[in-house]
């Protein structure tokens, strides 16, 4: 099962290297990793998705805690949190296929953000599963390239993650 860790770290040079290095040397695998500043500029949030089958999540969390720059780690339960991924996908589209693609875009509440004669760039957010389903439907038209952010997540309710 995929497990999401929301990790608050000091926003300092080298912190990402420390986290990535820790995963590498302890033989842990990262499924996806998203890093950005939070509401306070001294603190960044790393959202790390790991596979429970590959490593004990408890050991990953404890080892992460040992890094001096790690402030707080929250393990997010999928039922108690909201998770999203952002996808940008470039699909082949000519006069014949364009309207069908637009219908799929509408159903998934995605957005066309760039149009040219031969391709469309579509922006879409959703859970990992929804993003994958969307990608699969677009495959038949010819996917030129795509980029996904990896999983972002936030705990439900009043308490901050």
């Amino acid at each position, binding site marked *: 099962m995929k497990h999401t860790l929301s990790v608050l770290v000091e926003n300092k040079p080298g912190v990402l290297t420390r986290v990535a*290095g820790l995963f590498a040397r302890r033989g842990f695998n990262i499924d996806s990793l998203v890093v950005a500043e939070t509401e306070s500029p001294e603190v960044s949030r790393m959202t790390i998705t790991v596979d429970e089958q590959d490593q004990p999540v*408890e050991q990953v969390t404890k080892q992460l805690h040992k890094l*001096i720059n790690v402030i707080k780690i929250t393990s997010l339960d999928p039922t108690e949190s909201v998770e999203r991924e952002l996808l940008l996908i470039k699909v082949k589209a000519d006069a014949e296929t364009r309207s069908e693609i637009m219908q799929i875009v509408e159903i998934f509440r995605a957005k066309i953000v760039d149009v040219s004669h031969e391709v469309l760039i579509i922006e879409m957010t959703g859970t990992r599963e929804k993003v994958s389903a969307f990608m699969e439907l677009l495959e038949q038209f010819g996917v030129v390239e795509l980029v996904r952010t990896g999983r972002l997540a936030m705990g439900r309710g009043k308490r901050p993650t």
Partner: protein
Amino acid sequence: MKASKVILEALKREGVETIFGFPGGQIIPLYDAIYDFDINHILVRHEQGAGHAADGYARASGKVGVCMATSGPGATNLVTPIANAYMDSVPMVAITGQVSRHLIGLDSFQEADITGITLPIVKHSYLVKRSQDLPRIISEAFYIAGTGRPGPVLIDIPVDVTKEELDFDPDHLPAMQLPGYKPNVKGHPKQVRQAARVIAAAERPVIYAGGGVIAADASQELRELATYGHIPVTTTLTGKGCFPEEHDLSMGMLGMHGTPYANYAVSQADLLIAVGVRFDDRVTGNLSAFAPHARFVHVDIDPAEISKNVAADVPIVGDAKRVLTSLLVELKKLELSADRHLPWMQQVETWKREHPLVVRESEDGEIMPEFAIHKIWEITRGEAVTCTDVGQHQMWAAQHYLSSRPRGFITSAGLGTMGFGFPAAIGAQVARPGELVIDIAGDGSFQMTLQELATAVQYHHRHR
């Protein structure tokens, strides 16, 4: 004040009396400033010697050891000692020179990314980009190195930073900025009570004590626990001396090179009280066959060690001294009878009698190494500060030099660094000037760092 002086002022404020080091281009401003300070500098003959000497100094004294080297090759020569200190949780601050800020990343002369190189082997590290951060960084470095589970901290300082002028008031302590560092030192009271109950109920208990007991200065508390509960004690290699090895309850070291009786006891125990240990593979061997009948109480200050290799039945995160103190209080409430596990004590005695460690005296007219070590022990009554190198002689020393006190047996356990013993002995001698320091070395190990003979002679040390 010049930044180089600020660094030394800050070191003095941390109580630093001795620095082990070797100068070079990018650290010259710091060396120039040393002349004006009442800090003892020991000039080694290779930076590796400086690192191991700082390590030996830290282990012998309990203080944070300090070593210093220049950028590039000077810094990379500290890599082995830093890794060594990391594996054995030794408090150490390593200061390295770095090329000027505008030259970083350009493959400049004597440039090495030492913070990058040492990333997996430090507790923490700093690359100082602004001179005004120096007082805070030095405070933090010593605090991090010496608290919690101790370890090495690296401070990499570009040479142009050391030449800057900044305001510095030695009486004003800079505020540390460590929002993520809170070493948990007090054991959870509920867990401690649970441990006491489990200990009181055990029929075949064994204490398995390690370096954490020495780091926490908890030997006295450990001794009280063992004698009050009548529990035999076995130690790891880094734990040697945390319990007097001549004591009736001592079973010496356990594991691959341990005593037969310690290993028999562990394999038959129904409770292992593990204090300041990490269930290293040299101790446990095949994990699934280790102490198969035992439940585990595991006390360690590092939460990541608990249930890393062996699932703990009663995990206690905390400083060994504080946990053992409160554990004793709880145990005394339960009023243990002295003869509650008499058959077990008799069994341990029988194993000791039937399978003692054998000291071979001589073979083909030659003195055997174990015999020589045994004699050293007899003559010094186990009270010398004994350092070792790495290899067979190290195991003989661990088996036959019965250490009577903590910080009296200094050895490279986790990393197994050949060449460690001699420079470590130099550091230990600086830490304990009036005492007898012995280095037991093999010829291979000794030759790896024997240039430090010049250091020892220069500073009139009297190592054996």
